[in-house]
């Protein structure tokens, strides 16, 4: 029994590390992006986290995790709404690109991993993924998307997202400490 538990724990840890590595590697292989491509990356990154939250709301029984998932859904939807409003105003059509495609495919793998978790293991897997995902996205926004954005309003919107992501990160790190 102990060996099985240990194996499960090791597998969960490996899967989490893999998820974070995928998210990080997607951003690490970044080509030069145009504003329509940056807009697409921003929308996909937010959509991914809404997708993870949807699974959490379905599978978790932990009040803190459920509250966090609600916050993720609401906040990332709000960011998408404002990003879409801005690109509509600027007459920019978000353009699919290798980075946004990689983010989407990595997120599909993460969703599969989360769906496969037992109720017992889910909370840790979800929260660990949230911590890694937010770190990777914050780094990408600060070092890739903001510096490469050409339009001042798009740049300002991306800069405005960073404190939101940092608040999310500190919140899920706090929950992470309470989950064994």
């Amino acid at each position: 029994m102990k060996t099985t538990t240990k194996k499960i724990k090791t597998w969960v840890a490996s899967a989490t590390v893999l998820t974070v590595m995928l998210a990080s590697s997607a951003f690490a292989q970044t080509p030069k992006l145009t504003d329509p491509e940056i807009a697409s990356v921003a929308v996909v990154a937010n959509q991914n986290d809404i997708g993870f939250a949807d699974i959490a709301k379905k599978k978790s029984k932990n009040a803190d995790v459920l509250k966090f998932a609600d916050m993720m859904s609401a906040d990332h939807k709000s960011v998408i709404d404002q990003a879409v409003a801005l690109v509509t105003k600027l007459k920019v059509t978000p353009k699919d690109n290798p980075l946004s495609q990689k983010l989407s495919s990595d997120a599909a793998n993460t969703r599969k991993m989360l769906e496969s978790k037992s109720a017992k293991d889910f909370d840790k897997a979800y929260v660990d993924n949230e911590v890694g995902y937010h770190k990777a996205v914050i780094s990408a926004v600060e070092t890739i998307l903001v510096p490469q954005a050409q339009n001042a309003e798009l740049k300002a919107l991306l800069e405005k997202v960073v404190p939101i992501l940092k608040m999310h990160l500190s919140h899920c790190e706090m929950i992470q400490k309470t989950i064994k």
Partner: protein
Amino acid sequence: MSLAVIKLKNSICFILFFSVVLFSIAFLNSCSPNGQSDFSSVPKADTATKANEKPAPISYTVEIKAMKFEPEEIKVHAGDTVTWINRDMVAHNVTEEGTKIWTSDVLSPDKSWRMAVTKSADYYCNIHTGMKGKIIVE
């Protein structure tokens, strides 16, 4: 009419005119802000009334931006009003932290909420619980 009567009439007229002039000067002087007069008790009563009056309520604004309340701490008097305005991209609320005795509606971006303050309070956003603020009633 004799000359003596005319002189007497002129004297009376002069005295009357002089008295009117003196009275007028004295009256105007008493109305002057720096003047000394027997009406000095009136401004004293007025000052006492003003001292008892409460100052007019003041309106303060707290902006919610970059996931913070700005200013985080605000000093007011009871009866003053505070308006919170959400400048962030996400919804927030404003909730008393102790017993949750008061809370705002959910404030979508660019929406605001106003409250008349009656006592000091620690408050926070109960959507993003790391966001905290303080009202001090002096």
